[in-house]
């Protein structure tokens, strides 16, 4: 349901992404691994339109983004409601509580009413293990808790797929473990995911792994083949 075709992104003479193609089917968990600077995060950000690219195409269902020209706003909005993102630095909204963060998508992006959206938002927070932290501010949460709220926030708009950009890189092993447990839980429930990660224990449990080096996909396949 997500298809990337011949994606190329250059900055001056430097090729950040070089003719990248991949496909992610519904329910599939894909891991992107490789050394830093290999273009993994950039690829993710091209998929949801946070960065543009010169050549190639990104197709999510019936919406597609084409390289070389500015993406139409309507297309971006449609695509982003189908593909959510979880960031390495969490980027929770500091002036809102955990519950309000999770509600922000349904309320401000989908136009739902608070009464209608609240039960589901609370359920999501409970699902990620934070049912007791509805009114907490991000500053009063640990890193692991913040990232779990961020995951719940991304889930709240009911995306078909979620992109994870190094979700545990800013966390110590224990908190990373909490977050990875939530992600495993999601995967088990059939959530389509593309995860850029250095946490090999998670990558080993993905359906497909792509190894990216220097802006190219070096090797693709099941984890056993790609990860030594």
């Amino acid at each position, binding site marked *: 349901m997500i298809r990337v075709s011949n994606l190329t992104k250059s900055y001056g003479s430097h090729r950040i992404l070089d003719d990248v193609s991949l496909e992610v089917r519904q329910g599939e968990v894909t891991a992107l691994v490789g050394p830093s600077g290999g273009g993994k995060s950039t690829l993710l950000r091209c998929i*949801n339109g*946070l960065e543009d690219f010169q050549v190639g195409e990104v197709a999510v269902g019936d919406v597609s983004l084409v390289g070389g020209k500015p993406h139409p*706003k309507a297309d*971006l*909005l449609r695509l*982003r*409601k189908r593909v*959510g*993102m979880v*960031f390495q*630095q969490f*980027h*929770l*909204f*500091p*002036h809102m509580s955990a519950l309000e963060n999770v509600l*922000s*998508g349904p309320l*401000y*992006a*989908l136009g739902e009413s608070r009464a209608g959206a609240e039960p589901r938002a609370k359920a999501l927070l409970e699902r990620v293990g934070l049912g007791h932290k509805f009114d*907490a*501010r*991000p*500053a*009063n949460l640990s890193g692991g808790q913040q990232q779990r709220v*961020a995951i719940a*926030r*991304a889930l709240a*708009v009911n995306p078909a797929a979620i992109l994870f950009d190094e979700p545990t890189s800013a966390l110590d092993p224990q908190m990373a473990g909490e977050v990875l447990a939530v992600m495993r839980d999601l995967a088990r429930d059939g959530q389509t995911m593309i995860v850029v990660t250095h946490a090999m224990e998670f990558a080993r449990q993905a359906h497909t792994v792509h190894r990216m080096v220097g802006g190219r996909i070096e090797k693709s396949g099941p984890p056993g083949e790609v990860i030594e």
Partner: protein
Amino acid sequence: MPRSPRARAAAALAVLLLFPALAAAQELRWGTDPTGGAPFVYKPPGATDADPYIGFEVELADYLAKKLGRTSVLVDGLWKSLPELLDKPRTGEKGIDIVLNGYEDREGLKEKYAATIPYYVYRLALIGRDDDAALNDWGDLRAKPGQPPREVGVLGESAAAKYSKRLYGEDAVLESDDVENVVGMVKDGRMAATVQDNPAAAHFVKKYPELRTVGTGRQPGYYVIYLRKEDDQLRAQLDQAIKDGLADGTLQRIYRKYSIWNEDQEWLAHRYTGAWPTPVDQEELAAEAGGGSIWKLIPQLLKAAGMTVLLAVTSFPLAMIAGMLVALVRVYGLRWLAVPLGVYVEVIRGTPLLLQLYVIFYMLPKAFPALALDPVYAGIIGLAINYSAYEAENYRAGLRAIPRGQMEAALSLGMTRLTALRRIIVPQAFRIVIPPVTNDFIALFKDTSVCSVILITELTRKYNELYNFNRDLVVELAVLTAGLYLVMSYPLALLAGWLERRTHTASGGR
């Protein structure tokens, strides 16, 4: 001349050393305000900086200096603060010996300074437009029941100001430091009339055919020269010089040249055999001025403070809104919009508020008569525009302080840019800019004093006015005025602290 070269050199040296002392002893430094205009002290149209001043007081000063064996040196200052120059040393660039600039004989001033005998008898003249059929005498300007009072312009803190307020009430009288501007407004029909001393009145009626004098001159008074109390000898010399000038026709010649010699001056010339009688209303004015208590002045100060508050609390929200919009466009908007707004910010920040108020109130209506505004509206708009530039920069800094990831996270959820700004970015930026914004708000309270140049009576102007006529209460007035400003600003500081604490704990102590 001594014969030997050595002796000649010594003599030359002595003369050189004495010369500055000799030169200083030969000056009569007179303080005056050239912006007061014709026919007192002025330059004719088309004159350059190098051309000398003319006017009947220039010629009078020249005559007096010559009589005393000195050279006349003009020192310019602000009309209403000329007497204060007598409190300062007489040396230095702004040092003066006397004040000579159409200053009335006033009890309050005579307590602190000495005065010569009068050199001119003036009357207050009412000037109105030629085509104003409703204006035929002084009484016609009185507020009729059910109608707003017609406005009268005067020179700030002058006898004309006092008399006009007594006659027409405080609200009908608009004070300004600039006589030319006030007369211009009457000529353009923006003000009903102006009350000026008769020399100025004669000049303006001659200059502008649209204007005429209405009724007869009132409130005869004296122009005197003020000097330091200890300069007894100088005063005696000046008195004698004036008497001589009146007797031998010199003064008559000068005054006729400027068309201001009349029967009042003939009366003056004949009166110099002893002490002069006080003209009719001076006793009343004397009773009012000076020796009052501070308590009577407090209501006036409070009323003026109310105007200060009104100006500040109406203009600042406008400045905040405009500033936020400008900042949003500059940070997030299109280049072709952002660049002109950048120019706007630099121009408004880089030019004085005083000039901006002048443009809005005096100059714009000359180009577009439909844009003639009431002083208070002009003041509010002027302050709002000026401060919007500073607020725009505050908000721009606040917006840029928000990490990029916030916008990215919001967009990734499927929000539009506008919604993201409204719900995520701006609320955070608002909290960041609370300290500099309240800072500016407190500064705005003080900047309202600049609005006095467009005829608004706010607190600082009222202080100046009361101080002028109550010089014995200078300490009390100053303390009270400063106290009022503090009372107005301090709640803002408290509000800022409360806002900061509230948002501080709201975002979890960060």
